[in-house]
């Protein structure tokens, strides 16, 4: 006979405990969160100040290159004025995805994950220029906070009550697939123009996952969809750090041993063992991504 395990959707943390946890982490990370918010504000602000652009019949400043043709055309080519271009207004949609699998409960990974959620969610919600969604993943992926609701302290409590760190698998492939489809729906409903919409997923996990090759393909698909994925590896158990973890594979009967992170499928990953490191490394990764996407002409 098959034993049917209770659905993990039914597992949840008591509300009072979730509230207490949220309040504790929210106040513990308040200063860090304000700092991250400031850094993000700088990154999100359009890098180019408003520019004067031509060619118009009326405007603020003469476009000198149009003057000679204007005279030569007997004043017919009269689009000689430049106007101030409207500053672009970037908007973001961020998915915070938190590993709810059982491996997170070993060591202090789950505490670090919840602290990270409090820090990042607060920083983003005080920026007030975008939408946040929070997902939990493990064997299944659940939306614990949707894009279309503002993220408040109550949302934090609600989200925390859904994390139990007891799921029996860590299916990151399913997480990324679900996220990409959520992003594409959210993009179609966004007010911002496609080029000004910045979609970002922050995955918070201990980083141990399978199917690296499949994941690498999905990460490429995310890039094509203009979704950036930053993988935050919470590495709280120092004696068993993921930096030292090795992986054994059998290839045609031969043993191959490699450093686990050498085949890690996510290009942008950060290994964090203290929540205080997070604002600067996260802002650094985002800044780098932003510069690259501008250079790529995106």
């Amino acid at each position: 006979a098959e034993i049917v395990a209770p659905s993990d959707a039914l597992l949840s943390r008591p509300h009072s405990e979730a509230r207490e946890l949220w309040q504790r982490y929210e106040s513990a990370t308040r200063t860090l969160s304000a700092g991250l918010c400031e850094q993000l504000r700088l990154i999100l602000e359009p890098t180019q100040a408003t520019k004067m652009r031509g060619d118009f019949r009326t405007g603020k400043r003469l476009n000198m290159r149009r003057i000679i043709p204007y005279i030569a055309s007997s004043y017919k080519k009269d689009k000689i004025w430049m106007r101030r271009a409207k500053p672009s207004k970037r908007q973001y949609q961020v998915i915070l995805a938190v590993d709810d699998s059982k491996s997170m409960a070993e060591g202090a990974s789950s505490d670090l994950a919840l602290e990270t959620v409090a820090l990042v969610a607060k920083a983003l919600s005080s920026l007030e220029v975008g939408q946040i969604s929070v997902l939990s993943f493990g064997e299944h992926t659940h939306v614990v906070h949707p894009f279309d609701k503002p993220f408040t302290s109550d949302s934090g409590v609600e989200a925390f009550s859904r994390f139990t760190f007891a799921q029996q698998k860590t299916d990151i492939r399913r997480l990324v697939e679900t996220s990409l489809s959520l992003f594409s729906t959210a993009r179609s409903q966004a007010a911002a123009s496609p080029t000004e919409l910045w979609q970002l997923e922050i995955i918070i996990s201990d980083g141990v996952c399978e199917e690296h090759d499949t994941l690498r393909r999905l990460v490429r698909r995310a890039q094509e969809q203009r979704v950036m994925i930053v993988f935050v590896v919470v590495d709280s158990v120092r004696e068993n750090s993921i930096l030292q973890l090795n992986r054994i594979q059998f290839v045609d009967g031969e043993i191959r041993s490699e450093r686990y992170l050498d085949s890690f499928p996510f290009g942008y990953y950060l290994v964090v063992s203290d929540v205080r490191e997070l604002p600067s490394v996260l802002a650094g990764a985002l800044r780098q991504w932003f510069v690259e996407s501008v250079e790529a002409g995106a």
Partner: protein
Amino acid sequence: MDLDNPEQQPQSQVQVKFVTRDPEISVPTAPILVPSNLKRLGLSQVVNHLLNSEKPIPFDFLIDGAYLRTTLDSYIAENGLSSESVITLEYVRAAVPPKFLTSF
């Protein structure tokens, strides 16, 4: 599940820790990721790889004091363990030649 055909589905893995009471054959106890469809022989190969031994030593493996006679996968499923946890594998020199054991 057909374990002879690894192409059919992605290879699952599990973190294990190898421990032994015999200091002569001890390996670092840091967790290591191995395919979860390994049995005694595959695990023996892994430990020999870690020992860098010239002449492979056949090993037997125990989980919570019980000999492992199936794949890690089956053992985990049948004993209510989780592939999310680090499994501690105690290893001892095999008492009988491996050829004899594989006929079980």
